[in-house]
């Protein structure tokens, strides 16, 4: 199927959200956010692919795949890593202050 990679990307995005909604552990929530983002990597890289083309380095024979989406994905990965680090730092502090990482048990902010 020539559209399969795009559907995989969409699936990853939605399954990441599904994971966040049903999560019982904040670290699981953070990982699900990272999964949702990996859906965007798949989407970007798939749009740039061309059958029979090689890596975007000069000296490679023939046409090359789209280098711009690879640059965008690189930016995306850096953003993801740093945001994941921040969220995990927050989880550590939540665990220390409230002795739990279960979202159902955190009820400090209501109304």
């Amino acid at each position, binding site marked *: 199927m*020539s559209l399969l990679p795009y*559907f995989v990307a969409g699936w990853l995005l939605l399954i990441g959200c599904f994971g966040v909604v049903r999560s019982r552990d904040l670290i699981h929530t953070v990982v699900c956010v990272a999964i949702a983002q990996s859906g965007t990597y798949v989407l970007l890289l798939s749009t740039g692919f061309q059958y029979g083309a090689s890596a975007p380095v000069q*000296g490679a024979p023939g046409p090359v*795949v*789209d280098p711009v989406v690879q*640059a965008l994905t*690189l930016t995306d990965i850096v953003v993801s890593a740093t945001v994941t680090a921040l969220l995990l*730092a927050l989880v550590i502090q939540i665990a220390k202050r409230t002795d739990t990482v279960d979202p159902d048990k955190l009820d400090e902010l209501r109304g």
Partner: protein
Amino acid sequence: MTRSARWIVFWLGAGGVGALIVLALLKMPSFGGLVHPYRELSVPAAIGRSAPNIVSSVNFDQRALDTLGEETILLGSVVGAAALLRPSKDEREQLDQDEGRVLEATKLLGYLMLPVTLIVGLDVVTHGHLTPGGGFQGGVVLATAVHLLYVAGSYRMLRRVRPKTWYQVAEAVAGGAFVILGLVGLLLTGAFLANIFPRGVLGDLFSSGTVFYLNVAVGAEVTSGVVVLLSGFLAQALSVREVR
């Protein structure tokens, strides 16, 4: 909200969003196609600037502002994580006396791999404009090399070799260097982040103008940033203790 209410809300939304995404994806150009307009523009532009690694050229020359933003996000997140992981008012850093045992095999492998990883990292950073790689990738490799000291040795050993202040200053200097290079471009040619250094011959180490120097600056920044980031997490796990 109760769990079941949450599910109802989610499934209603997911149904709608899923339907929309499926309808959209059916209209996408088929995978592996031939039409890539941005590529047709950016590959010749990169070759024209003597940067064989087109992705690096896109990152540091054509769309350099995105990379500036990305490097600033890294800087901000490292500082943010350091702020969030700081010892709180009733905590102090206390190193444990008992460091645990490291297997001899791990020690050997670690000490062997450390110089190899360092060299690989430096290679990836400095040749980022010629072969796949670059500042971000190489920076992470270099930071991993530093932490092989923790894996193969001990936390104390890592702390001795890794004075956090120096890395923080290095990060600030490298991050500032990126922007200063851009400002120099602004002053000399009227365009921020313009490629002002000599292009050189395709394939040389000192070619493709500012791409090389920005690569090195980013490599330094990512290395120091990741080391500072991991130092916060390691401290929380290993040395931050509550003190009454």
